[in-house]
């Protein structure tokens, strides 16, 4: 295996959507057919489970199509001695990608490594939770500072920080497989983990993103759609309070398009909020049986 390190520039990627494929010409007016057959305004079915990591105060695992994320929450813990006294709690967020999360190993760099394991396609929800510790030993995770700060901003508006003064709550998110629309899944999963940990929240936080492809507005894009997108709008909101905690827009949008996109996303967030609530209720009622 060691002798194979040669000049080959990239690892073998099984997916056909590699660099050579040209962007399909999206003639203005024609509809974009989604690779997984969903409607334009249809989100991927969500699989949510709390209690994925036994050693954490709270944790959650979320699977939206091919995007698989696990979040664990530790705390409230004593703040480091170096930090100043504060009468409200602190939130510390960290988002990292595993090295096997993207089709090309490592987020940015293309390098050949004999230890690349194509575990992604072999995952099923139950085995993931079982194998998570083994994987963390084998592969390094790459940190993503800007995603961490966006997760922080999305969550800090929802947590009642006054309920745990002088302490810190740590949120660690690990993206096991990146199948598009990663940050919204991370945010929704993190708020589930926070509720599992018993941290007091104003409301659960649901997040959805939307891509603009030519004339079409496509919700919950997959990585293929994201690579062709003309613009992206991501909204994080608290459905019951009807408050937006975070919103980012990339690309060129006209005002009516933004109105329409926001409306569709907020509706999707409300539905996602209901799914998250039912997941939490199941988790609570199951042990009582």
């Amino acid at each position, binding site marked *: 295996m060691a002798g194979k390190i040669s000049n080959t520039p990239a690892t073998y990627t099984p997916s056909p959507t590699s*660099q050579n494929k040209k*962007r399909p010409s999206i003639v203005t007016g024609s509809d974009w057919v989604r690779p997984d057959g969903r409607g334009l305004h249809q989100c991927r079915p969500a699989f949510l489970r709390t209690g994925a990591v036994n050693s954490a105060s709270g944790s959650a695992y979320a699977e939206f199509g091919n995007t698989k994320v696990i979040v664990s929450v530790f705390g409230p813990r004593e703040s480091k001695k170096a930090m100043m006294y504060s009468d409200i709690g602190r939130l510390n967020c960290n988002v990292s990608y595993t090295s096997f999360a993207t089709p090309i190993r490592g987020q940015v760099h293309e390098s050949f490594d004999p230890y690349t394991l194509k575990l992604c396609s072999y995952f099923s929800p139950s085995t993931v939770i079982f194998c998570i510790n083994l994987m963390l030993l084998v592969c390094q995770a790459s940190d993503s*500072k*800007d995603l961490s*700060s966006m997760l922080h*901003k999305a969550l*800090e*508006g*929802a947590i009642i920080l006054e309920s745990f003064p002088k302490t810190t709550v740590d949120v660690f998110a690990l993206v096991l497989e990146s199948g598009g629309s990663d940050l919204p899944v991370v945010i929704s999963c993190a708020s589930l983990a926070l509720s599992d940990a018993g941290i007091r929240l*104003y409301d659960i936080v649901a997040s959805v993103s939307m891509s*603009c492809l030519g004339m079409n507005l496509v919700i919950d894009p997959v990585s293929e759609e*994201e*690579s*062709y*997108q*003309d*613009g*992206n*709008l991501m909204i994080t*909101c*608290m459905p019951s*309070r*009807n*408050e*937006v*905690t*975070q*919103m*980012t*827009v*990339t*690309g*060129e*949008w*006209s*005002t009516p398009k*933004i*109105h329409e996109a*926001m409306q569709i996303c*907020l509706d999707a967030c409300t539905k996602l909020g209901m799914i998250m609530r039912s997941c939490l209720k199941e988790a609570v009622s199951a042990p009582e049986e």
Partner: protein
Amino acid sequence: MGATDVIASVKAELGKPNASHPDKGRVSIYVDCSPTAEPTFEGRGGEELSIELSTALQRCLLGGKSGAGAGIDLSSLSIVEGKVCWDIYIDGLVVSSDGNLLDALGAAIKAALSNTAIPKVEVAANASSDEQPEVDVSDEEFLQFDTTGIPVIITLTKVGRHYIVDATAEEESQMSSAVSISVNRQGRICGLTKRGGAGLDPSIILDMISVAKHVSEQLIDKLDSEIAAAEACDEEL
């Protein structure tokens, strides 16, 4: 802007284009917060703010992944498709910080780009398709960057129940949240970032967008006239 001082510089290097977009050049934006602005920026202190500002600027100026809607036309930066392109490095430096850093940086970058001249490159005609072609960078002739498409960033800060434009550091210390909207000359939104922890009602965000569009028209006109005046001064020298 007021007591906020920022410096923006643009450097261009020849490089290899991204494999997924062979016909486009590359632009990378980075902001550095210098300790001269705030003592807390020394060492790692300013890193978080730098990353936040850089990400917000990249979002506003570079548009979607396919390159559509970008303020800077990336295909004009390509020299030989798939092999050689211009790598543009835009660096911003915060010298004095009195609030509203993002707007000042956006305006500075727009001005810096309008002053940028990319040298003309001639490609040797008989290069085989596998090797790197020979490029001859001309010292004499330059191409001016086209900056009419570059958007300008307006930050609306929500303080209590009102929102204000161009907040000073004192006003920013009281803010509950802020929305930075980047609008271009045609009145289309090129990027939007919400900062700050508090939640906002969606109708407020839509209202902020219309206010930002209104203010941006004045700002773009003022900026363009200032840049034109400065360039006229340069030519006279």
